[in-house]
Structure formats: structure tokens, C-alpha cells
């Protein structure tokens, strides 16, 4: 079993630590670095609860080894400052809340990558972030509101 020194930025702050090869990014973030806004749901990359941004791109923290974060800029929901957050509150973009941080991180990446996304493009982008309360209409309204607020 090998150990690896990894250095990356987490929400703009430098991180420098040593991890065993098999450490998962989601466990590193939650258990070692205390960023528990990133949830571990299905653990197989399907549900979107653990969505983080790596160099701006949305990814599943449950499918990344911690070593894959070396040299990157990582953002979790704790580092998010977006009109999306107010919009989710105003439009009721969540019910139980377990999926919300993943929804926000995916939607934030969308607003940067495709700021003028049509409702169909929004649905396509957000399709992989599941809400078991099925609060999808509220989420869609919140994203549309945040698009308009820009």
C-alpha cells in the first residue's frame, strides 16, 4: 500500500497532506477535511449527491481517488457563493435537502458553462442529480431565476 502527498486548493485555500492510495475523494473531503456538505449517496456515481467541482467541472467525489485531486482546484458547496442559493430558498428548490449541495454544485457549473441554457438544456445537464422527494420543478424554477439574476 503506497502513500501519496497531494496538494490542491479547496475553496481557494491550499491543502497539503498525505493519503493512502485507496483513499476516496469523498471520504477525504468529509472525514479528513470536514467538508460534510458533500454527501455520499449511491457511491457509484449515479445519484449526484457528492457532486463537487474539479477545475470547474462537475464530478462525482465518490468516483475519484484522493490522488486524482493533486494539482487541481476543488470546490465544494462550502465554497459556493451564488445567486442560486437564494433562488433555491425562494423557489423551494429542496424538500429534505440531502441532494441540495449536489444540485447547487451541478447548477453552478452549468451557469458558468452554459449561462444561456434553454430549459431543455438545463434538464439535460441536471438529469444526473436525483431528488428522491421529486422536487424537480422547484429546482428548475430556482435555476431559471438565477439565470435571470445574472
Amino acid at each position: 500500500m503506497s502513500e501519496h502527498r497531494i496538494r490542491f486548493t479547496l475553496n481557494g485555500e491550499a491543502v497539503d497532506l498525505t493519503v493512502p492510495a485507496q483513499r476516496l475523494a469523498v471520504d477525504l473531503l468529509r472525514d479528513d477535511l470536514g467538508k460534510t456538505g458533500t454527501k455520499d449517496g449511491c457511491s457509484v456515481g449515479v445519484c449526484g449527491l457528492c457532486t463537487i467541482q474539479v477545475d470547474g467541472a462537475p464530478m462525482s467525489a465518490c468516483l475519484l481517488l484522493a490522488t486524482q485531486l493533486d494539482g487541481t482546484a476543488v470546490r465544494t458547496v462550502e465554497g459556493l457563493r451564488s445567486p442560486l442559493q437564494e433562488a433555491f430558498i425562494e423557489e423551494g428548490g429542496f424538500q429534505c435537502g440531502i441532494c441540495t449541495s449536489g444540485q447547487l454544485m451541478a447548477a453552478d457549473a452549468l451557469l458558468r458553462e452554459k449561462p444561456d441554457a434553454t430549459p431543455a438544456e438545463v434538464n439535460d445537464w441536471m438529469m444526473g442529480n436525483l431528488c428522491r422527494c421529486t422536487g424537480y420543478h422547484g429546482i428548475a424554477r430556482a435555476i431559471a431565476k438565477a439565470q435571470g439574476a445574472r
Partner: protein
Amino acid sequence: MRPFDYLEPATLEEALALLAEDPDDTLVMAGGTSLVILLKQDLIRPARVLGLRRLAQLGAIESGSAGLRLGALATHGALARADAVRAHAPALAATFAAVATVRIREQATLGGNLAHADPAQDPPVTLLALDASVVAMSKDRARTIPLEALFVDVFETSLEPGELLLRVEVPPLPHGARATYKKFLPNTLDDYATVSVAAVVAAGADGRCTHARIAVGGAGPVPFRAREAERALVGSRLDEAAVREASALAASAAEPIDDLRGSAEYKRAMTRVWAERALREVA
């Protein structure tokens, strides 16, 4: 997850040398979307994992007179967005855009996709219809493998121990050819296809078919070219009767199994239906 040794070479030469040291017990990781799941579920137990992420040159996407050269580390997202891919065949860019979710597309790579060899994946089907091949390299040699010969069985390729998949080469389309990829998703949009069909068809000035390549995914242990269907189509007028005949032949070449995405009988029937839809679009 069981412990393993992780290796992250800085050069291709170093990667090939490390792979040659212990080829049977070293697994190659590109994006990791499939490998990490297999590791977590204890379905594979490698002594060593060789991560390719520092070999940035393997992510290049290039086009020229010989067609497209797609680096093994290019992500599905990068390939879907690449002007070179869209210019070559919009259907190929659309195929990459149809894979799983945006998160997977940003992490998973072309080379990882092909080496994983799940028969229900999308890119192999369109790449088969585009007559693609792959270049693999070991410490001692490089060789070109037609894509059709890469897939041996479910999760099994003809890559030899010590070989690394470097890139995919896609030749230019026949003059005037049209290409399409049809993915049948009766469950959710992020699912693997129940069946999928890619078709590349060209016709001469007289309206008769000059080239036809049809590939099918999800309907057997490997994605396959429906060669009898192709032969039936070439020389035909590409009318509804020809489309139906070729699609029935494609379905009869399928060897599907019963699983969560449908019974074997259903998948065979859907192979015919989706071959018809694909062929009508390009005929």
C-alpha cells in the same frame, strides 16, 4: 477498498516500463469512473494501479487528411465539445454527449471506455460504424488494432498484458456519407442503452447505396458490425423495403441476453426497430 500501490508516471516511457514490470497485476486507470467502482465493490484486486493522469499529451484531439486522431485520455466531454469531432461527424460528437451524465463525461475517457469493454457503451458503436481502429503500445512495440478486433467478450479486449491504448484513429467518411447514432433508453436518460445502433450510409448519383456500415450495441457480448445487413443495403435504392430487410438482418445477428434492460427477445426486436430508425435517417 483494499489497499494497493498507486503509480503515477510522468512520461509514456515510464508508464510502459512500469506496466512491463508486472503486467498481470497492474491495472491501468484513466478517468477511473469504472475502475473505482470495481475496486470499491471488490470485483478486482490489483496489487498496483497505474494512473495516467500526468500524461497530458494522451488527451490530444487532432484532425488531418487521414481523419481524426483521438487521444486515449480525451474525456467524453472534451470530445463532445471538440470542433474537430463535430466537423468529422456530428453523430460522433452526439454519441459522446449521450454518455451517462455531465459528471461522468467530464471524468471518463475514451481510452478507458474502450478498454473497459462493456457491450452497452455508446462510443464503441459509432466508432465501429466509422471504421475506427486503435493504436496500442507496449515497451517493445506499437500496433494498430481494428476496433472490431479489440472487443473479445464482455469486459474483455484483445489488449495484451503490458499494452497501453494510446489513441483512436477514425478515417474520413466515404464521400457524401451520412452518419447517425440512435440510443434506445426506455428507463432513464443516464442509463446504458437497452440497444443502440449506428449507421454510416452513402449513395451514388443514381440513388443506389455505395457504402453501408451498421453497428449495434447492447445486443450481444460485444458491440458488432451487422455485415449481412450492410451487404444487403449496398447496391439497393435505400427505399423502405431495403431498410426493412437490412434491419431484420441486423436483428438476426444480435445475441442479446435477458437483463434489467429487457429480455433477449425484446432487445432483438428493438434492434430491428432502432436499425430501421437509424437507416431511415441516413438513407
